């Protein structure tokens, strides 16, 4: 019987290789899979490229990975937050690379990665520093920038409920980047507050169909702060 639920966090993170690109869901702490990130730290993979909206809060989640020197590069829209001191210090010391991507372009690039789209023209960022060197094009009188898809070796997803088939639902604004990231990685690992029976999730309300998910691990309701 198909069962994507693994018994513990160590099993969930098994096999993540050094040098991997890791997509990490969440917007700030909402939907950020803190337990999976802690388990990745434990697992030991290093020289990572992290793709996430932010670059870590205080000493939680992504900030811990950074602090442990596991991250070579961050691709995000908004690294600088009130409590992103770990990232800030590493960046200013030249110890971590940064690629800043407008938030909507980041979401759309990850969607494109999961959807087999080779590239797309977006009006966002045209005429700005963040489009420097990128191909531009006028379409129906408006200027667009060509953006490329983003894919990961691994995606770490923070969901609410999941079943053994890998179907996932989220809670409120913790959905954010998680559904796209789940589609755009070779290995998608989801933490859930609760594992439910197959058939218990309303098929009309499943946000991430199980086809996108390789492993599910129950971590209970995470409390970040």
């Amino acid at each position, binding site marked *: 019987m198909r069962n994507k639920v693994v018994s513990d966090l160590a099993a969930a993170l098994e096999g993540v290789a050094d040098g991997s690109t890791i997509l990490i869901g969440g*917007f*700030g*702490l*909402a*939907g950020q899979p803190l337990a999976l990130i802690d388990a990745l730290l434990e697992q030991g993979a290093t020289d990572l490229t992290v793709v996430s*909206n932010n670059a870590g809060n205080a000493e939680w989640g992504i900030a811990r990975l950074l602090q442990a020197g596991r991250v070579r590069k961050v691709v995000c*829209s*908004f*690294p*600088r*937050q009130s409590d992103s001191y770990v*990232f*800030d210090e590493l*960046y*200013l010391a030249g110890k971590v690379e*940064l690629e*800043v*991507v*407008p*938030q*909507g*372009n980041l*979401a*759309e690039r*990850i*969607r494109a990665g999961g959807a087999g789209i080779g590239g797309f023209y*977006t*009006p*966002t*960022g*045209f*005429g*700005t*520093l*963040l489009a420097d060197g990128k191909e531009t094009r006028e379409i129906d009188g408006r*200027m667009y920038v060509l953006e490329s898809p983003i894919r990961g070796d691994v995606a770490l997803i923070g969901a609410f409920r999941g079943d053994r088939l890998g179907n996932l639902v*989220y*809670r*409120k*604004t*913790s*959905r*954010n*980047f*998680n*559904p*796209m990231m789940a589609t755009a990685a070779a290995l998608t690992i989801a933490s859930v507050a609760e594992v439910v029976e197959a058939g218990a999730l309303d098929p009309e309300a499943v*946000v991430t169909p199980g086809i996108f998910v390789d492993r599910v691990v129950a971590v209970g309701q995470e*409390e*970040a*702060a």
Partner: protein
Amino acid sequence: MSLDRDALAARIARDIPYGAYVNLGIGAPTLVANHLEPALDVILHTENGMLGMGPAATGDDIDQDLINAGKQPVTELPGAAYFSQADSFAMMRGGHLDVCVLGAYQVSVHGDLANWHTGDPGAIPAVGGAMDLAIGAKAVWVMMDLLAKDGTAKLVQACSYPLTGVGCVSRVYTDRAVIEVGSGGARVLDTFGTTLDDLRELTGLDLT
């Protein structure tokens, strides 16, 4: 006689059309929400994935899974909907929002917006949704002081700070005046205890 932030927020709220879908940027624009009459039937969008956002959450209503784009806890109104950030930014980019109100470092008379980066080489660049919001509504309004703390005008002929978007702003609400900007240049729509001549002198611009 210039307007304080709260009075300016009230003025902006009065200019929002009935039934509009509105995104309020982080910072001062958030104040606009306090002045939206229920009868105006405005629906608030937050780009982290929600329509139908209610007021800030307090006490037991605080839920770490329900936050706005400024990562502050908020509430949900009846008829709300949640969606992914891909869908949320598609909604913005596709021109479905009626009004977006943003803060700014500078706005040019042609509607160019600079609000994400001071250009300081020591600064850590962070754009968030600023560039998406800049092009992401039928009307993009800026709420800002006319003058920076050093006395220089923030409404300019051409932005000296790095741009967020080109020709995207249609109206600038400042403590001294409301000014239309765009391909036709800057035109003063309303003044608050000041004159057109004063505004010309403060900005060095050929305002009409």
